[in-house]
């Protein structure tokens, strides 16, 4: 029967159990703060998933996922901020403090909730398409692409701090009330908000899984393993890379929107280099070749951070860094590869395995 880890049906079954487990949490948990925190983990899960899609399956290490996340978050925060301003007084207080006497052009589309939310998702996605398109067509890849995303991230970080009258500078934006959508007010501590976030996480996971199983995903994985050969076969490598990078950015932008809905706050810290690198750490520790592994990586690390972090605040980063080094050195495919080899041992015991690599997690030689 081979290694169960590579069995497509088994994979979908695990997904179903995982998401069903999370869906029933609000029915058993009464603590609304815990619910809100679990929902934020869902956002982190989405980010880890987007990294896994881009890096694990596309071979594109993106150290600047905070751009898509942050721009999405800013778009959503701007929308929510404008919801609390009425027609007669359209200028948010922080702009008045920076002596602006009219609403900037940049902010005007966000007066309409629907336009604002669409922009919050579309703008970062478009940015990824353009930036990715330019870079991949110039055949910037591997570590150099990673460095360019890092540089782009710090460019956005500096510009947001610099343009204080438009962005709130270091303080960021703090919309005073929660999101109103289609006549409802979405309370960030309610089960509704939780289900919205997990709905998006579920949707993103299913779509990502379908992408990796499609022929498009197959070519993308081939590009990861040997882009030159795929190029010689006549595929547009840059095109595939741009699409997978953009889809990954889209997921991160949605995550950014969800995040602001939950915490009602955004600041340049969301575009900090450290935060984008932690997304990569989640995926690396969980297992970047496994979508679910990456999501669990985010849950484990962030969970450990919020529970251990309080007691070991000073040493937490030390522990995280050390753990990260050990994983990269000895377990380059992450914790998910432990499951894979564990199930492989189990399969080996049950008789000769029919070598039938299936699904998303083939054993991959370290690059």
């Amino acid at each position, binding site marked *: 029967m081979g290694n169960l880890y590579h069995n497509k049906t088994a994979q979908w079954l695990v997904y179903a159990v995982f998401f069903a487990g999370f869906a029933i949490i609000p029915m058993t948990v009464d603590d609304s703060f815990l619910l809100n925190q679990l929902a934020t983990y869902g956002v982190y899960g989405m980010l880890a998933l987007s990294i896994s899609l881009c890096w694990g399956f596309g071979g594109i290490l993106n150290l600047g996922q905070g751009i898509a996340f942050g721009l999405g978050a800013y778009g959503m925060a701007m929308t929510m901020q404008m919801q609390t301003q009425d027609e007669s007084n359209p200028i948010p207080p922080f702009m008045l403090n920076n002596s602006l006497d009219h609403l900037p052009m940049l902010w005007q589309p966000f007066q309409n909730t629907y336009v604002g939310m669409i922009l919050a998702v579309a703008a970062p996605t478009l940015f990824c398409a353009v930036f990715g398109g330019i870079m991949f067509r110039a055949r910037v890849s*591997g570590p150099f692409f990673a*460095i360019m995303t890092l540089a782009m991230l710090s460019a956005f970080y500096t510009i947001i701090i610099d343009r204080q009258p438009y962005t709130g500078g270091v303080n960021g934006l703090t919309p005073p009330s929660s999101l109103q959508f289609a006549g409802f007010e979405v309370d960030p501590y309610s089960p509704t908000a939780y289900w919205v976030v997990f709905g998006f996480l579920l949707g993103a996971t299913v779509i990502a899984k379908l992408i990796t199983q499609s022929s498009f995903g197959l070519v993308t994985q081939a590009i990861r393993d040997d882009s030159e050969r795929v190029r010689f076969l006549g595929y547009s490598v840059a095109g595939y890379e741009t699409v997978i990078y953009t889809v990954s950015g889209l997921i991160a932008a949605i995550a950014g929107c969800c995040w602001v809905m939950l915490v009602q706050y955004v600041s340049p810290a969301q575009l900090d280099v450290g935060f984008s690198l932690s997304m990569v750490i989640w995926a*690396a520790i969980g297992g970047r070749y496994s979508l679910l592994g990456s999501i669990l990586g985010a849950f484990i690390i962030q969970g450990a951070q919020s529970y251990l972090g309080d007691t070991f605040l000073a040493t937490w980063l030390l522990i995280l860094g050390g*753990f990260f080094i050990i994983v990269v*050195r000895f377990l380059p495919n992450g914790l998910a590869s432990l499951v894979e080899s564990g199930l492989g041992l189990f399969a080996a015991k049950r008789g000769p395995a029919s070598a039938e690599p299936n699904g998303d997690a083939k054993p991959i030689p370290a*690059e």
Partner: protein
Amino acid sequence: MDLGSLLNALILGVSIASIWLIAALGLTIIYGTAGVINMAHGEFIMLGAYSSYMLQFYLGLPYLLCLPASFVIVALVGLALERGLIRYLYNRPLDTLLATYGVSLVLMQGVRLIFGSDPKYLAVPEMFQSNVMLGSASISAFRIVVLAITAFLVFALWLLFYKTRFGVQVRAVMQNKEMAASFGINSGRIYMMTFALGAGLAGVAGALFGVLAIVLPTMGASYVVQAFLMVVVGGGSLAGSVVASGVTGEMQSVFAFFTNDTFARFIIFVLIVVFLRFRPQGLFAQAGARR
């Protein structure tokens, strides 16, 4: 438009460029030889600044002796890191990037635990505290010292790489590791020594930065991205890094003269993206350079 202050900005540009250059040279050497993306380079710079601070504060060592001492201390740290971790990750460039990021977290947090998060200050040595007049522009003597040290380092590196046996071996390993090995060159040893050399250069950069800016556990992060950009624009070669640092440092300070410092950085980033669209291999691409 005041010509004197523009001249001031141009001279400031040269000194910014030279700071970036020392940081970028260390990275270039490590990347160019072994293909290692060293994310801990910023923390090496930070370690250099802290070692100079300690030598000055506890031992009362004169500043000019702190520079070579920082070189040695950080080079030894680099050597230990290469032996303990990096040598297992050669041929996995993305993994070296991740592992060294883990190292940078550990170094940063370790230094914070030992020294605390409060800023430390390296004193400007007394003999360089004066200002020098250049036409209508005035520039602090220390910035000229920084320039002189940079020039000295570039010259020393050129001698090392182009006039010594070690340099020939390094260049051979850079171009074709297997071929070099079959001629009896121990590439593992070359990797080890170039890593230590690059780390040591970061140490010197840190000792210089420490005087011009504040010494903090987190200071490395702000330098490493800039330094990497110099490597990317330069194409991974030494000459490329020199030119890239010079041009972008100068452009940065001219743009900053017309707008402000942060906006100038943003313009530089955008220009670099546009530049890479048309010349992805960088200014002077190296034969056989990995990317």
